[in-house]
């Protein structure tokens, strides 16, 4: 076993989440190696765990985590801290790389320069909270979920399984999976409104 498993909590407060965002910005601006090392220390072991859950092999997971971090370096100039928190952005990099490797295709995304794009004419009362603060609120709301709901949310993001496969895995009816998810989403949304 080459992967010792440790548990360390992620950013608990917005200041720490902002630090991650600042590191990415600094990598983009001045090819800041120290900032990159910090990002690597924080995210690489998490991305490795993510890849491991999908790939089931620690060499592949290691290689993909390295590749994801290289993309963080290469794409740092595309990161916009007003649009996404660091963890959100790196999650999408890991997700897209995973689909690229394991499913041999690109994740299909909206093209922001699409002439058919319809932009929001009525944006939400613009951003009382920053993306970093928001990400921390989401994380806090998720931690508040009852265990059975949290498991369904985690499996939805961290395993390549449909809701019916989650039902099979947990040995519960499909309807229960769906209702737990619905409850979780409702609770997170409600919780966010309370917190925001």
């Amino acid at each position, binding site marked *: 076993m*080459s992967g010792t*498993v*440790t548990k*360390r909590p*992620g950013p608990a407060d917005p200041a720490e989440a902002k630090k991650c965002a600042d590191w990415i910005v600094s990598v983009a601006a001045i090819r800041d190696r120290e900032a990159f*090392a910090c990002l*690597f220390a924080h*995210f*690489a*072991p*998490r*991305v*490795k*765990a993510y890849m491991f859950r999908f790939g089931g092999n620690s060499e592949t997971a*290691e290689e993909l985590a*390295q590749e994801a971090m*290289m993309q963080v*370096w290469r794409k740092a*100039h595309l*990161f*916009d801290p007003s*649009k*996404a*928190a660091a*963890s*959100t*952005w*790196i999650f*999408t990099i890991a*997700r*897209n790389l995973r689909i690229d490797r394991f*499913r*041999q295709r*690109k994740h*299909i*995304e*909206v*093209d*922001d*320069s*699409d002439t*058919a*794009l*319809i932009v*929001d004419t009525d944006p*939400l009362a613009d951003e009382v909270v920053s993306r970093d603060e*928001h*990400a921390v609120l*989401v*994380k806090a709301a*998720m*931690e508040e979920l009852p265990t059975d709901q949290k498991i369904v*949310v*985690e499996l*939805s*993001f*961290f395993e390549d399984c*449909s*809701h019916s496969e989650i039902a099979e895995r947990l040995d519960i009816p499909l309807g229960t999976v769906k209702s737990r*998810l619905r409850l979780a989403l409702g609770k997170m949304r409600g919780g966010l409104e309370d917190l925001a």
Partner: protein
Amino acid sequence: MNIKHHPTDQTLMDYASGTMSQAMELLVATHMTVCPHCRDKVAEFETMGGAVLENVTRMEMADHSLDHVMAMLERETANENPAVQELPMTRRIAVGESITGSAMPSIPTPLVKFLPDNVLSLEDVPWKTLAPGVKHFQLKSVESKGTVRLMKIAPGVSIPDHGHHGHEMTLLLKGSYIDDIGRFRAGDVADLDDDVDHQPIADTAEECICLIATDAPMKFSGFLPKLLQPFFGI
């Protein structure tokens, strides 16, 4: 565009987590192009993905992993040409994919990429007649799981009962139709779960064009001429 019907939260969450079939993803991304509401929701689900990533039990990286990565990046950076850097986030084009459809503002890019190169509008699609008043065009997806096709339905004709199992979504691209759930117009998505019996009917003088994606293969056993009776008097 006044969109009234959206994919369900669970569908948008599957899109954000990257666990849906390519066929479904194509439909969702096409809808998102014209629906800022769903783009916001997906961003929210991606934030949840980031939160799950933060909370995951970490797996230690191999020894010297960072050194190895840094060495490779140093080599790359040494040859870096700033002029070829990708465009910034706000005007991003997916890497390695060209856009053939700049001349067709009405068809969202995700869909354009799945159409033949010479197709400049929905009218140019090489439609195949399936039944009187019903034409279709099957889009090629890389994945074998799921199917996605365009359907063109003449006014007053009902979309044939295609007995789907599993998850099916329909995105209206042109015209409108009506079924038990309500009326669907361009941009609307009908996101149906297993075994919902519905038989949408193109209900205006205009033909109706839609994109239909399924997770399971579509069964065309239901495509019998007797099921294709034109529906008049709507």
